[in-house]
């Protein structure tokens, strides 16, 4: 792309620099508009840039650990088999920290916890298939929400995943497909 612009510069330098300037201003504005807070001006301008930002996967808010980092959550799921027995699987505990996909899987569990739909039902059905040998009838996600731990409690030997610091949140069960 720049090769064509460079060729044009050899013949019509002003035009080439004009096109280069237009692109630079457009792209820089797009980068600024993507994370801009909601306002009247943002609402007016954002739709113009949205297709460009979405097409190039640039539409991000950049709020790393913001407004606040969360103390964490541990995801389990409970499979209920045809006989009514429950099988609890510790999803978070089964992840290998050294694996490349570790952050992606923890992202996924956070997603299922905070913003479950539209993915939770599909994710549950995938897990039903994965554990087909248990002949599951339904599956329910269980999230153990970690409460903030003070440094004093840490020094005393407590840890974030100790039961007294966990609040259990059970999500609605999803029936497994026959």
């Amino acid at each position: 792309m720049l090769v064509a612009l460079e060729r044009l510069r050899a013949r019509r330098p002003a035009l080439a620099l004009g096109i280069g300037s237009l692109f630079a201003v457009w792209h820089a504005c797009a980068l600024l508009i993507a994370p801009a807070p909601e306002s009247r001006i943002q609402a007016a301008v954002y739709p113009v840039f949205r297709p460009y930002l979405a097409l190039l996967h640039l539409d991000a808010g950049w709020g790393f650990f913001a407004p606040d980092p969360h103390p964490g959550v541990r995801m389990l799921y409970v499979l209920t088999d045809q006989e009514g027995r429950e099988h609890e699987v510790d999803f978070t505990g089964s992840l290998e920290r050294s694996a490349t996909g570790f952050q992606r899987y923890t992202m996924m569990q956070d997603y299922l916890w905070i913003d479950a739909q539209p993915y939770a039902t599909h994710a549950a059905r995938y897990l039903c298939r994965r554990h087909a040998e248990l002949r599951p009838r339904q599956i329910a996600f269980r999230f153990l929400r970690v409460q903030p731990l003070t440094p004093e409690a840490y020094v005393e030997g407590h840890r974030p995943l100790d039961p007294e610091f966990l609040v259990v949140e059970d999500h609605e069960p999803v029936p497994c497909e026959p």
Partner: protein
Amino acid sequence: MRALSAASSIWAQLWFQSETTRSLDIVRIGVGLCLLASYAGLTPQLLELYGDGGWVPREALSMYLERWEYPSLHYHFTEDWHWWAFHGVFLLACLAFTAGWQVRWAKWVVLVGHISYGYRNPMITYGVDTILASATFLVCLAPIGATLSLDRWLSMRAARRAGTPVPVPPSSPFHFTLRRLLQIQIAVVMLFSGLAKLRGDWWWSGDALWIALNNYEFANVPIGWLAAHYELVNVLTYGTLMLELGFAFLVWQRATRPFVLAAVVAMHVGIAVLMGLYLFSAAMLVCDSAFLRREWIDRLRAWIGRKAASRWRRET
């Protein structure tokens, strides 16, 4: 007229300084390594994470499928081998992109592939993917591979064998435009990341780092030493906040840039070690390299050359 000429000169200085693709090629190598590490590592879970029988089947993506703006080649795959073939081609393209071999073609495969993966499973896509997409897009627009590449080495060897002059890498003011846009991207990331944190209570109270490190996902190292010296948590929390807010204003000045970049390197190394976010830290550091001044790279190159020459002399 004089004012117009001055404005034009400032504009050219801001956007159009002639340079080779060397800075962009440094970013290319770094981005290529990050993409390779990320996607090659996901190979065993390819169908689980991106396939129709996995966590996110196609019907879960109705919002994405309905809009042409969210493109993914994966939406058109129907058989398992489609995923495997695409993944294989994509990894080879990443390898070629990194090594600088046939970059003219490989770079577009890398860009389209990376965006396709991102939209196929939005649940596992995060900031690092957007940063890498941004950097990949900008380097793709340039004729990268003209320096620091296998293509360059092959053309130099061919020229030497033919007894013709070694081709000089082309310079263009537009290479700098792209580098400038990458610099702006990083400044925007840092600034908005800092501004968003200002709304958080834990950032104000200086506890944010402690909370983040207590999170199982980021608890990469034992933190008893931080609990025992909690004032360090406050210092690091406020330091992160100040660096993120100040970066966009201080990185452009000649006098402050080295210090700001050194602080950013320290922050990202810290994030990698303490929180285990290796890929994120690497991607950010790669993009930060767009701020390296040409004379710094020249000096580094000369130093490496001297070291290599003295070692060669010693050995022979």
